[in-house]
């Protein structure tokens, strides 16, 4: 009993997640104005057909605010995850190829970052940079590379020991030739999957740290801010302010995971058996 072809399902998952994220990003960017409009004739409306996510105490459309906030968070997440992944790539390769000293320095650095809970480290960095958007982006970029760096390091070491690279070396091929011709093609898929799987973490941490009040100001309604404002009105029974934006955030993060896993399945040669 095989339900269709698994690879087609993987591709469908990838397509759907990409479309969803693109729609959120574009729609969010288009609703910058709508998200800001306050209208006291329509405050505190629970979800209805006209305002599917309801409106808040200033009469702002929560759907527009959520989309705007999400698209901002996605951009921040992608940007800092990309920086983080670049750091991971450089440090991972360095620690695998530049000898024992470099390796132990980098592994010490990884332990150092892993030693402080992420959120706390983000708070520290944010405080050091005087809070604000910059602090969040730099904070997330600086804290998310260790796991990917470890992965890349392991991969490079394994590649270096592999017979065909040993043979290429015997044949007198240059370092750069080997790196470009034999190593990169294997490393790139791993790197891309690792990068995509950094997005969800980055977004979750970005939203958490903004939720706590570090980083973005209320004029920049990132999703963390939307939710932290909603918290204040929770006790008064305005459940929709927190429920729908949060659900959409969870769904967005799930979509990033789906994207990463789909890419992994497509790029990983070992998945032929599945």
């Amino acid at each position, binding site marked *: 009993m095989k339900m269709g072809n698994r690879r087609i399902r993987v591709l469908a998952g990838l397509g759907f997640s990409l479309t969803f994220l693109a729609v959120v990003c574009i729609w969010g960017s288009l609703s910058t104005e709508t998200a800001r409009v306050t209208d006291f004739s329509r405050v505190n409306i629970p979800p209805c057909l006209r305002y599917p996510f309801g409106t808040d105490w200033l009469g702002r459309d929560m759907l527009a605010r959520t989309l705007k906030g999400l698209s901002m968070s996605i951009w921040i997440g992608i940007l800092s995850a990309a920086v983080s992944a670049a750091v991971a790539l450089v440090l991972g390769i360095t620690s695998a190829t530049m000898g024992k000293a470099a390796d132990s320095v980098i592994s010490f650095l990884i332990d150092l970052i892993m030693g402080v809970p992420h959120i*706390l480290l983000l708070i*520290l960095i944010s405080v050091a940079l005087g809070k604000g958007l910059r602090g969040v982006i730099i904070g997330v970029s600086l804290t998310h590379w260790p796991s990917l760096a470890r992965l890349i390091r392991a991969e490079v070491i394994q590649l270096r020991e592999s017979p065909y690279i040993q043979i290429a070396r015997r044949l007198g091929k240059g370092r750069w030739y080997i790196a470009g011709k034999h190593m990169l093609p294997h490393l790139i898929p791993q790197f891309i999957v690792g990068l995509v799987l950094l997005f969800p973490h980055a977004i979750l941490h970005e939203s958490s740290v903004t939720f706590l009040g570090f980083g973005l100001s209320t004029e920049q309604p990132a999703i963390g801010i939307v939710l932290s404002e909603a918290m204040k009105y929770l006790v008064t029974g305005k459940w929709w302010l927190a429920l729908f934006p949060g659900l959409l955030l*969870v769904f967005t*993060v*799930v979509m990033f995971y789906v994207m990463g896993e789909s890419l992994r399945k497509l790029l990983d040669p070992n998945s032929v058996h599945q």
Partner: protein
Amino acid sequence: MNRRWPVFLLKNLVRMTLLVICISIVTFGLMKASPVDPLQANVGQAALGSMSQEQREKLEEYWGVNTSPVEQYLSWAGDFIRGDMGTSLLYRQPVTRVIAVKLSNSLFLMVMAWILSGILGFALGALAGMNQGRLVDKCIKGYCLVISSTPAFWLALLLLMVFAVWLGWFPIGLSVPIGVEASGVTLADRIYHAVLPALTLSITGISNIALHTREKMIEVMGSDYILFARMRGEKGLRLLRRYALRGVLLPAVTLHFASISEIFGGSVLVEQVFSYPGLGQAAVAAGLGSDMPLLMAITIVSALFVFGGNLAANILYGVIDPRIRRGGTAE
């Protein structure tokens, strides 16, 4: 136990000490780099006014302009080791006392969550791994995916909304009833107020350990030695208990010790939502209020816990795995 044990332990301890020192340096550096001047930030407030002369001098000493950063660090670190972590600007108390109170509140929460999520996570992961590809597995995997995509603070909001606001089963916040003397707080009160935050932390903590256990379970169930055990007629619970469990439990416990950092991080968010007066909430307050001494102390205390967990994980690995215990090399 063989003779390499003390060496192993010593190596770990040295590395840990070095890491903590480095973390303190980095933290101190970050705080120094902050454009927010803590004295300035807090001077206008009543905080400074109510401080003793001695306390104020201490502050000047840390943050004063007349000494070099290195000297400042050394004097701060020296005091820290002697047990004087400075004075909290926000709470107007010695940081040691603030931390002692907050930490005991948080520990209560975190230990409960840690144990609960460990047991549940392991059970779910093992169940999923043994039924790979079946419906149970898919449900558990789906649950883990959703949970790891859910920010802890939003889950906290959700539970607060349902159980405290709608159903009214639990209080909306704080670790003790308002207006009750500290001595009048019973254990029951504390548990009552900690249930929701601990529940949130447990729910989020499950996914990591469950996914890991699942992977390990699949790996072990596909291993040569389980295959051989099956060929020798072993099956069901017996196969699980006699053959698979040890190989799965060991890495799971190790991982759980090593993931103390995540529970710590989660508690920062959860405590904020439930206004539970623990270490995490203090960290946020300290960060927002530029209470540098408190923030630094919290960082170092949490780092100590994280490294302590890692150390415990390493030692445990050595105790359970015969290959390490008997002096062989693993793998």
